[in-house]
């Protein structure tokens, strides 16, 4: 098992290094000028050249890459061109919003997915639920988000249309996570407000996850229910709930877990759209602003966080699957 774990870590580091090389190489292909982006469009060329030298953009690409990696090894991701802040500081500020949204979306996705899969296997109403969910998730995420926003915010006024918290006088908390902070500081109105802001973007993100997880879990459960040990469990007189929780779900969990790991990668793609649509101040918004201002340190920083998160979740899922089915750790 330890060897399996170490192999995953080594794979994670290799992928991250490869990604930094690709992103750095892209700089040479894209004709953007970070120095010009920093000083503004009207500044004389002499000022831009001076800024370029100051940013060491006049150095060869391998030299800049080496310098970046040396800094990275010390935990320094450079300084954002757009915000002028250290990228680590910006990431610390924007990441909690994204993680909070992703966590809630994942949780919602899994709950809805399970809520659709179980009736599908256990009762005759499942197919109707499944069709409804597929219908909702087959629309592009931009459209789904827009329609949800138009209905629940613009028309009905039940939920906020954007942002993470109302422009109110809430006290900031220690973690940067609104739900946790509101509970830690005992601001219950802030908790309600944060939850209200989370619903629409999280639900938009959760729909494709729910479909993927629901379908995988349903087919996996159907397969498991055909096994002889399920028949044996029923023959022993165990209730249907016990059969499901103790025997069926445990054995059917592998494929849905793998699907959740795959969905994390999709979530990061969808985040760029959802955070723009709902003015959610997270990494997606930060990255889009970074693109617009040729802010390579910011873009690299976000890409590293996204890739690390994805790889860590994928590794955790692999370990969980190996724990559920020890044969996998031998592969």
């Amino acid at each position, binding site marked *: 098992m330890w060897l399996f774990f170490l192999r995953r870590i080594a794979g994670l580091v290799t992928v991250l290094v490869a990604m930094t090389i690709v992103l750095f190489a892209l700089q040479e292909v894209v004709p953007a000028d970070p120095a010009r982006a920093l000083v503004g469009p*009207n*500044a004389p*060329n002499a000022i*831009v050249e001076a*800024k370029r030298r*100051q940013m060491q953009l006049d150095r060869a690409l391998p030299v800049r890459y080496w310098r970046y990696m040396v800094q990275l090894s010390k935990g320094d991701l450079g300084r954002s061109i757009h915000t002028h802040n250290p990228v680590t500081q910006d990431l610390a500020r924007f990441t909690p919003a994204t993680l909070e949204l992703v966590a809630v979306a994942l949780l919602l996705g899994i709950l809805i997915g399970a809520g659709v899969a179980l009736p599908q296997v256990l009762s005759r109403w499942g197919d109707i639920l499944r069709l409804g969910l597929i219908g909702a998730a087959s629309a592009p995420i931009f459209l789904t988000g827009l329609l949800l926003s138009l209905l629940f915010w613009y028309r009905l006024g039940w939920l906020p249309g*954007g942002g993470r918290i109302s422009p109110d006088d809430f006290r900031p908390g220690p973690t940067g996570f609104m739900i946790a902070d509101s509970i830690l500081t005992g601001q219950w109105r802030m908790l309600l407000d944060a939850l209200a802001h989370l619903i629409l973007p999280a639900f938009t993100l959760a729909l494709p996850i729910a479909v993927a997880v629901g379908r995988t879990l349903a087919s996996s459960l159907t397969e498991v229910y055909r096994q002889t040990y399920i028949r044996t469990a029923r023959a022993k007189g165990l209730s249907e709930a016990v059969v499901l929780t103790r025997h069926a779900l445990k054995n059917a969990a592998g494929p849905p877990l793998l699907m959740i790991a795959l969905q994390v990668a999709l979530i990061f793609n969808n985040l760029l759209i959802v955070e723009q649509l709902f003015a959610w101040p997270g990494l997606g918004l930060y990255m889009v602003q970074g693109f617009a*201002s040729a802010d390579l340190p910011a873009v690299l920083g976000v890409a590293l966080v996204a890739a690390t998160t994805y790889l860590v979740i994928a590794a955790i899922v692999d370990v969980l699957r190996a724990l559920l089915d020890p044969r996998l750790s031998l592969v």
Partner: protein
Amino acid sequence: MKIMRTTCAAAFILALGFNARASAAAAEKVLRVAYNEDVATFDPDGAIIMFGLDVSRVLYEGLVQYKPGTTQIIGWLAQSWSISPDGRTYRFSLRDGVVFHDGRAMTASDVLVYFRRRQAPSLPLSYFLDGVETMSAPDSHTFVITLKAPQPAFLDRLASAWAPKVIGPEALVDHAGGDLGVAWLNEHADGTGPFKLLEFARGQRYVLVRNSNYWGPQPYFDKIEILIVPSTNQQMLMLERAEIDIVEHGYPFDQLSKLPPGLKVDAHDGLGLEMAYFNQTKALRDPAVRNAVMTAINPAGWLNDAFGSFATPARSLYPKAMINGPQAVAFPTDFEAARRAIARAGPVSIEIGYADQEEPVQQRVAEFMVSLLKQIGVTATVRTIPLDQESSLINNLFRAPDIFIAQNYPDAVHPATQTGVFFETGAALNFFGYSNQKVDALCAEAGQLTSIPQRDREYLAISNILFDEGAFVPLADIKDIIVYRSGLVDLDTRPALPWAVDYGTLRRQ
């Protein structure tokens, strides 16, 4: 059923909380505005920003400014000023009773310390003070700048939207650090303006509160909240729902004639001239082809469809608010001659690039041009050019588009700031590297003239040369559009202050 009831109850409580907050906010004197993007910094020396100029000018103040609705320069922190007969020395008498946000009184020494910071080569906007020889503060109320040579555009530079604006000692002394206070000023402010920066939550919102020690009239609003809302469509809906009060930029032109009830539009002249830059390296190398293309892209053929009544044909290569030329630019109009010229030149294909920062409207203009060019036998395609790639077009003119259309803004109202940024050899936004020694010499000559009618005649002559050569083609004077909720008055917009109202004078009726 129980789960259903619980869910409905939770949703009701959330909705109740959300709406209660909205109605409570409406009762306060709070102004809510949305920006499409995060402001890089409010540091007046930090960057050319577009969103945030109105916040910047109520946090910080310069020596002089443009009078609302005009291009006339009036005093700001300087009550009056004089210029020496040789045009080199500017003596500013500073206003009494000016106090920084940290409570310290402003003196000429503070102004001097600040202007020295602005000159630091590491700061992007230091070029505004190029040509300054010395600066001094002979007494606590007088600040003197001496130039190496006369610069008739100097006072305009000091009145520009990105002009030097005085920063206080809390930033420049207490938090100077090793970077002239740049890091601190990223998310704090210490100016003299009518509002103080209370909160800077990057990516979310900025909150300003009224400065009770302000030297001038107290602003109407107690608080200004700037929300970051990337989608203009969402801003429009928020405006309709009264969640914000103003959309300062990007409201679609085709929606302006059918605004929902309760909204009003302010359309005023600005400095953003719509221009086409011709790349004379490829298909447009031949003057006859250029002339034919100019026949086709004549704004008379598309201006109304693209901008409605919110644009007029350009009168020269300067925005109308800078030089109001006698008449609209005369484009060639003979389509038959244009067709013959293209037929003689053989198959002509061109690519039109447009600036992505104004994407919907620029794309529309480009597509109108494509269909008009087709009528003279030119095949045209369009592509967007990201803002950060515009300045790199010059690095490979063979891969660059043949025509680039954009609405760019000069630094100030003096025409020298237009020629110096767009038309002169090596200018920052001279995208295709146009170079003409005669034009450079004429620009240098015109830049020294102090008689405004004579100066404008010289600059218009330069505009004619550039147009006749088919290097730069003026298309349209587009109005700056601000859509706001009825009841707001005294917006006090300025032609040289893009996408901005004056939060200091704005009030609710």
